[in-house]
């Protein structure tokens, strides 16, 4: 099934999901409203015509205007792919329903995108940071992220030898 076909069926089934087909990419992407993602995913997995049984990748993205979560789905049965995207403006926190009950692999991927982008996932079974320590400040993959200077008294900056040398001479 091609992506426009999938898009048409989805648009029929979810008229309220504000579905948009972004065709300016090498592969078209279906954009949906955040709230509708879990329902769409469930349909995509369970409908025998789609049967997207594997979630290849789930990534957080920051564009100039907004934060997004991108889902790359694949069906081992029908051998077709689709990309979903949910996004929200930077002014407010992006909250997306979790898909970890649909594809368990999303569990860790969602945790990662929360960890690095601060995207929240509702009903996530284990909403903790995954890569960084729990008490880390900020979301590093945001473009405006300021790195921490120290963490638990461990210095995280390089020693500036030039400055030290100057200090010795004076």
């Amino acid at each position, binding site marked *: 099934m091609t992506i426009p076909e999938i898009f048409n069926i989805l648009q029929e089934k979810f008229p309220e999901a504000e579905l948009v087909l972004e065709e300016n990419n090498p592969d078209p*992407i279906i954009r949906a409203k955040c709230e509708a993602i879990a329902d769409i995913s469930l349909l995509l997995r369970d409908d025998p015509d789609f049967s997207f*049984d594997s979630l*290849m*990748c789930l*990534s957080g*993205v920051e564009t100039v205007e907004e934060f997004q979560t991108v889902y*790359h789905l694949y069906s081992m049965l029908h051998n077709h792919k689709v*990309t979903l995207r949910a996004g929200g403006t930077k002014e407010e926190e992006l909250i997306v329903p979790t898909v970890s009950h649909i*594809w*368990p692999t999303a569990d860790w991927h969602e945790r990662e995108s929360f960890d690095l982008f601060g995207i929240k996932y509702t009903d996530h079974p284990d909403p903790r940071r995954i890569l960084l320590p729990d008490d880390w400040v900020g979301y590093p993959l945001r473009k405006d992220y300021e790195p921490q200077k120290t963490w638990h008294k461990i210095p995280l900056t390089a020693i500036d030898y030039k400055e030290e040398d100057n200090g010795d001479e004076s």
Partner: protein
Amino acid sequence: MSEIREIDIPVGATPQKISQMLENFEDVHGERMVVQMGPQHPATHGVLRVELETDGEMIMKATPHIGYLHRCFEKTCESMTWQQVVAYTDRLDYCSSANNNLGYVLACEKMFGIEVSERVQTIRVLVSELNRLASHFIAIGTYGLDIGAWTPFLYLIQEREHILDLFDRLCGGRLLLNYMRIGGLTHDLPDNWLKEVHEYLSYMEGKLDEVNSLLSYNKIFVERLANVAIISEDMCIKYGLTGPNLRGAGKKWDLRKNEPYCGYETYDFDIPVGDGEVGTIGDCWDRYIVRVKECEQSMRIIKQATERLEKMPGDDVLAAIPKSMTKVAPGEIYFRTEHPKGELGFYIVSNGKKFPWRLKCRAPSFSSLSVMSAVSPGLLIADMVALIGSIDIVLGEVDR
């Protein structure tokens, strides 16, 4: 005096079933021991920490904690030019750097519409298959080490050294190659290199049988691994386990065949799958033996690639490398390749500038590791070691 109860775990029970049974089973004394396995532990293959809740030696709950090697790959790449990122992909899964390079350069080439010559493709196949061999040798060897057999590990590292020698001659690096470029390679093959590859192949003949007789079919080894930590095909797909882990569960799935890239469709090789030879399909032993069998197939591909390269007229491997990558096409792409550990995907977003806007690496080990907490309830500590080894993780890739 409290009554001591026993749980009867039926043979062939699914991990979910076992975990459910264990949930319902109340410990008589209400005491469970929490043990931290790692980050400094010989069996965790690096800096993984697994928090084990045990009752005696039986694991009730295992929670993996990762991030001890989070080296900020994705953030760093956003400040590197497109070509510079290749060096960082080396350090993702440091056991198989050429395969990482391949995944990244193919993704970029597809996005920017760069065509490379057939010779470059064949060299890439050759190098990445050699690296797959090296990576599987480490996986097999360290697995033996986990189970308590020292000697096979050292033998396999020894065989791996020969591959590293070849790499050393090829590009000067033993472990991290940084050999591929978007649009080509850093330089052509050295003189006589193909002959050395041939020599290596003839040297390796029969060595895998030695591995099989020393380790794979060793009675104790089989006893330790058969019917342990079964991950079914369904579960593999759900949890995103790919590569040898999925094939070990009996699914004939290999991106080199199913979604061919780099001309893999023209090579003659098989996809080994686990068939429950000594136990149940999808147990630790099946996942292990798939790797051993894959080594044979890799050698077949290497042989074919070398023969083709010998016949092929030489060309400029740098020809298709773009002269400047300061202005590129905007867009985004997700591209995946078959990596020794599974499917390595790169999700690249370009805004048309010099640097990638966003680069997400879908690491196979990351997904593979997430299955651990679902499989481990009901295992013994020794089985846990076998499980970690059998899904073959590399922490550089898990944490990125």
